[in-house]
């Protein structure tokens, strides 16, 4: 039953992805003017323009171009060639994606426990000072411009206190060549690997120090959303009859919250956690740019600024795939936690169309 549900959901997301490729392909066509000229820039030689025109198959009819694009994408995993970096986009992704994964994971490791904790506390101790403080933290989290927060963090922790570095991924003093020595392309993991294999812990500590500020800055928004959602879901549940029954049975408040309420409040919270995770793993545009973190978001911003359209196209597609994947994953986890949803979805399909 679960496998079938999962398969159905998976298949239903394929048209979405196809639509995305078509939209991105169409968007490229909608750019006014000669796309090859636009991409080459004003000072390009005619040969360069012709090269771009050739490499994008601009001389063919549009449906052939689209077919070719899809064919390359699906069967050859060819994401195109970046004009700005003059490298295959797949190569660029192979270093940018691990960097983004490292940062996003670190941010989620801060955001999820903190958001859950604040949300539960403020729901349980409703209208107390705890509730007010937690709500204020959450409100600040959604309202804080992340680029401003990043600047303030840098100013305070790097400049005034000198505790943490402002940007980049690694100190120059660490003897480490990422191109040849990196196993995971995630320096914290590499550092752990180095340390455990007896090559010293320098890399690990340096990598962690560089990770702290961007991760903290990035964690604020998901933390705030998780906190707000947890609070309202818990408040909903705590008003239900079965909670009153549990209380009447004389169970301790701790046990009620943990065993009875948390399980039932989990669904919307899990959904929003996966949505937020999807947003982070798709590349944190502002945070990565601020802290010079060489991930997907930074790559995307650079490519937009320099009109590197193949990169924009493939970057967006990748981000889209990540979102769809996390949405799907969230749906499946929720379906697994609550079997009622699967059933209603199956019934809904009967008379829905």
């Amino acid at each position, binding site marked *: 039953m679960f496998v079938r549900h999962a398969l159905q959901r998976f298949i239903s997301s394929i048209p979405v992805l196809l639509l995305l490729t078509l939209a991105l392909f169409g968007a490229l066509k909608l750019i006014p003017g000669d796309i090859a000229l636009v991409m080459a820039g004003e000072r390009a030689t005619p040969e360069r323009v012709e090269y771009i025109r050739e490499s994008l198959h601009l001389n063919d009819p549009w449906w052939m171009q689209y077919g070719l694009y899809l064919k390359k994408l699906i069967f050859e995993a060819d994401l195109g060639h970046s004009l700005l970096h003059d490298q295959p986009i797949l190569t660029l992704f192979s270093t940018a994606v691990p960097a983004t994964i490292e940062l996003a994971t670190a941010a989620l490791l801060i955001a999820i426990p903190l958001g859950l904790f604040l949300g539960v506390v403020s729901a349980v101790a409703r209208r107390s000072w705890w509730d007010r403080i937690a709500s204020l933290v959450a409100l600040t989290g959604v309202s804080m411009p992340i680029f401003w927060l990043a600047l303030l963090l840098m100013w305070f922790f790097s400049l005034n206190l000198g505790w943490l570095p402002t940007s980049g991924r690694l100190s120059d003093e660490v003897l480490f060549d990422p191109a040849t020595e990196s196993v995971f392309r995630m320096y914290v993991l590499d550092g752990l690997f180095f340390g455990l294999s007896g090559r010293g812990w320098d890399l690990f500590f340096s990598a962690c120090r560089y990770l702290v500020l961007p991760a903290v800055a990035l964690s604020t928004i998901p933390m705030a959303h998780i906190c707000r959602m947890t609070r309202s879901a818990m408040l909903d549940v705590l008003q239900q009859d079965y909670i009153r029954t549990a209380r009447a049975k004389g169970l301790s408040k701790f046990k009620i919250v943990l065993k009875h309420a948390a399980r039932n409040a989990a669904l919307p919270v899990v959904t929003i956690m996966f949505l937020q995770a999807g947003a982070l793993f798709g590349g944190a545009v502002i945070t990565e740019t601020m802290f010079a973190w060489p991930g997907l978001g930074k790559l995307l911003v650079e490519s*937009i600024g320099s009109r590197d359209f193949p990169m924009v196209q493939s970057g967006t597609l990748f981000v889209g795939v990540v979102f769809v994947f996390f949405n799907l994953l969230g749906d499946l986890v929720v379906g697994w936690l609550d079997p009622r949803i699967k059933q209603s979805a199956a019934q809904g399909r009967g008379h829905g169309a």
Partner: protein
Amino acid sequence: MTAKPSVWRLIWAEVRANRTAQSAIAIILLLIIFALCAPWLARHDPLVLNLETARFIPPFFMEGGSFLHPFGTDSSGRDVFARVLFGGRISLALGFLPVLIGAGFGVPMGLLSGYLGGRSDQFLMRVNDCLLAFPSILLALILVAFLGQGIVNLMIAVGLAYAPTFARVSRSSALGERNKEYVLGAFANGASLQRILFRHLLPNILNSLVVVATMSFASALLESAGLSFLGLGVRPPTPEWGAMLAEGKADFYQAWWTLVFPGAAIFLTVISLNMLGDALRDALDPRSERRGT
């Protein structure tokens, strides 16, 4: 049978009882007034450079500062106070106008889709759900990539990124209203589709729309500033809060005030709008928890 109280009366009642909403409105109004009256309040032109005598003057409360430049000056000797005030005009507009654009596209779509139902509704909402899965800043970013940069394109991009939100809300509200007697009555009377959608349905779903619009105002402002900060929206030297932060980033070792004031302006506006949005949701949205329970 009692008539449904009008949206504005509900809002007024909520605001009268809720002190948070009052202070939020006060701050927002104050910021709008400051922005509108910028030419009379600021003593300097926000664009005039003064590289010889006025570089990096600190704000008034620090040594070397004066009320001539209450927020100090930046690396080119421009008055930060004047730039924050004039920047407010653009930044606030970049929050507000995209909401209008988003509502302009999303609301008719959602109303039509919800009212007509059927296959087209299914299809439209499918597409809409895909769009909603993306965070709006990313949608706006992609649109900017294809539209090109500049203030107008930024506004359109951010605005279009909000259309799915408005479409979803108005669709689900329209779905709830379409079989009510007043709608059926209007239809039986031979009212045109346009009339049913905008004269009958729209006023009755304003509740939800006002809440969404307030929240969207906050996040659209944040996103426009963010895109300008990344250099993809408003370009320096035009005074805009996000663009000012981008410019000041290089000087932040010497002059923290070039960053703190525009950033604080964004934060203050956004947090006030969010506070107001929360209060309005409690008052207007039937699904949210009622106060006092």
